[in-house]
């Protein structure tokens, strides 16, 4: 199993490298370090969200409310910054993470305490959170000139050749790796998704683990809210609409099993980068950006087919089948 997963990451790396090589024959300069750094920076927010989504998916759940959470938190932070320009940025970031974590905790609580299926809970909160963003802003926009210079510039500031936004993503990747592979919570997340019955017998509180996973996902969505608003220098109700699907797509492409318990941090990151490279390559090689949606659709379907084959080879078809039914249902 381990070797298989390793293959998946190596395979994805090779595919991404081939894609970059292929695109650079059409558009010289595509493979240059500067451009690759740009692509990474551009994908940073997707990477952060995908890691949160992955944590949730590992526990056999799904969080469709991340993008709405991002929109609400981003709006809240931007409005606070516009109204009180003197507040230090650190406080705003703590506020973003806090609001995000709280919204995630609502999801988690409903899943944990009331045992409502995660897909139903997050479908509901998805519309609620985005609606709240509207109520909060009254449908208005917060534009670049209303935001303070520190608020806008910190994520763009280059440190050692990379913008701070990229460094935040890198830190979170390392953090996610540590949490999921080295901390009891991470192992509990894998266990409660991989085999819930065995996890209970091993003394793992599945509900609590799911709750924590949603809090983590929410906190990362909140942080991304600030990063998004600052990067694009505008906040409005519809920012990142539909982005939750991109995060699921990144996970699926990265080999994270939607049935829970299988997947690695490297996979999620590579899945996000895969989408990022495609997104950045299309305009460069002269394909209409309107084609991006269809292409990611095809990629998701292919990735699902591929995942299913890989998991089936592992000889776990009976468990997988049941798990898949429970999640999809």
């Amino acid at each position, binding site marked *: 199993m381990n070797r298989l997963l390793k293959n998946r990451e190596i395979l994805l790396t090779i595919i991404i490298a081939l894609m970059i090589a292929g695109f650079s024959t059409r558009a010289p300069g595509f493979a240059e370090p500067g451009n690759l750094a740009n692509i990474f920076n551009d994908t940073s927010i997707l990477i952060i969200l995908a890691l949160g989504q992955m944590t949730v998916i590992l526990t*056999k759940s*799904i969080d469709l409310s991340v993008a709405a959470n991002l929109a609400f938190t981003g709006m809240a932070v931007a409005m606070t910054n516009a109204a009180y320009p003197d507040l230090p940025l650190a406080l705003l970031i703590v506020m973003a993470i806090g609001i995000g974590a709280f919204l995630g905790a609502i999801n988690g609580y*409903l899943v944990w305490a*009331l*045992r*409502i*299926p995660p*897909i*139903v*809970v997050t*479908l*509901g*909160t*998805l*519309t*609620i959170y*985005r*609606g*709240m963003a*509207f*109520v909060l802003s009254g*449908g208005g926009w917060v534009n670049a000139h209303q935001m303070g210079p520190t608020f806008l510039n910190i994520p763009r500031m280059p440190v050692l050749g990379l913008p701070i936004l990229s460094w935040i993503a890198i830190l979170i990747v390392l953090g996610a790796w540590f949490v999921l592979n080295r901390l009891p919570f991470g192992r509990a997340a894998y266990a409660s998704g991989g085999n*819930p*019955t065995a996890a*209970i017998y091993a003394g793992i509180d599945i509900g609590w683990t799911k709750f924590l996973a949603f809090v983590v996902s929410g906190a990362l969505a909140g942080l991304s809210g600030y990063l998004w608003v600052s990067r694009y220098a505008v906040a409005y*109700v519809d920012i990142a609409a539909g982005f939750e*699907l991109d995060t*699921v*797509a990144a996970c*699926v492409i990265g080999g994270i099993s*939607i*049935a829970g318990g299988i997947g690695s941090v490297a996979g999620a990151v590579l899945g996000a980068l895969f989408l990022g490279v495609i997104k950045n390559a299309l305009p460069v090689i002269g394909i*209409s950006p*309107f*084609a*991006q*949606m*269809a*292409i*990611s*659709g*095809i*990629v*998701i*379907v292919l*990735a*699902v*087919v591929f995942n*299913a084959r890989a998991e089936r080879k592992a000889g776990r078809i009976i468990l997988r*089948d049941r798990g*898949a*039914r*429970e*999640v*999809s*249902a």
Partner: protein
Amino acid sequence: MSDVVSAKRVIPDRLGSRTSRLLASWEVLLFGVAVLIFVFNSFASPYFLNAWNLSDATFNFTEKAMIAFAMALLVIAGEIDLSVAAIIALASTAMGAAAQAGIGTPGLVAIGIGTGLVCGAFNGLLVAGLRLPSIVVTIGTMSLFRGISYIVLGDQAYGKYPASFAYFGQGYVAWVFSFEFVLFIVLAAAFGILLHATNFGRQVYVIGNNEFAARFSGIPVERVKFILFLLTGLMAGVASVCLTSRLGSTRPSIAQGWELEVVTMVVLGGVSILGGAGTIAGVVIAAFVMGLVTFGLGLLNVPGIVMSIFVGLLLIITIAIPIIARRIKEMS
């Protein structure tokens, strides 16, 4: 989640009387909610109790409800289709392109419904044929179908439909009863019979309750699932004909986010998201509840996005209440 599944299989030693069971059923509860909202609305706005206004209000839910019937069967069988709104977009784009080429109304309807069937067959093939989890497959095909619309249309729109095509979304069969509303009633009856009075319907329940048992009883699980996806695609195609005809134009963003509203309608109608339980009657009442809520709020000048908060709350609260009630009952 394993607890939920095992709890579902508990069979009580004695069932309550027929009337008490009926009174405690989800459908009756939901009907009560619908009546309450109706009464509340008629007090809240003087424009509510007007036959034509109420008739207009039905357009809020008829198209979504058509899909919700098929989706209910799919959810009862333990699957889901998140690509329905994207199918509407693709079918509408196909019809728009055909209308541009000068094809008449019957041809347009055939193309719209045909596109829906093809999309449904594609989903069915992936889920039933290759045995993939439907939730991710349909997230993928959702991007794919709508993506094709975007490739075809970009930021353009189709707007030239033949005059007779407007009947499906704007025509009235008799008095205030629109074509869409009549179609909604006919389809509700048809799906009710299909689910509750045919072998096929029983097979859907069996698959949702225990797929392994279904297999061992000789039910062609894959074939049933394939047919269900085909049906859902078909209904999305029909809904696309109605919606396109009503709006008279096609943009690739048409029906954006409808998949969530359709699923909300199904779940609100008492269909278990874990599969195996639910009725068409429940979905019909849920359609009315959602229609009445959005219409009533609209009369009170509440913006659409704020209404979606109510729909989201409605979804979570209606699911949470029975769970909390059961919890309290167990405690006492």
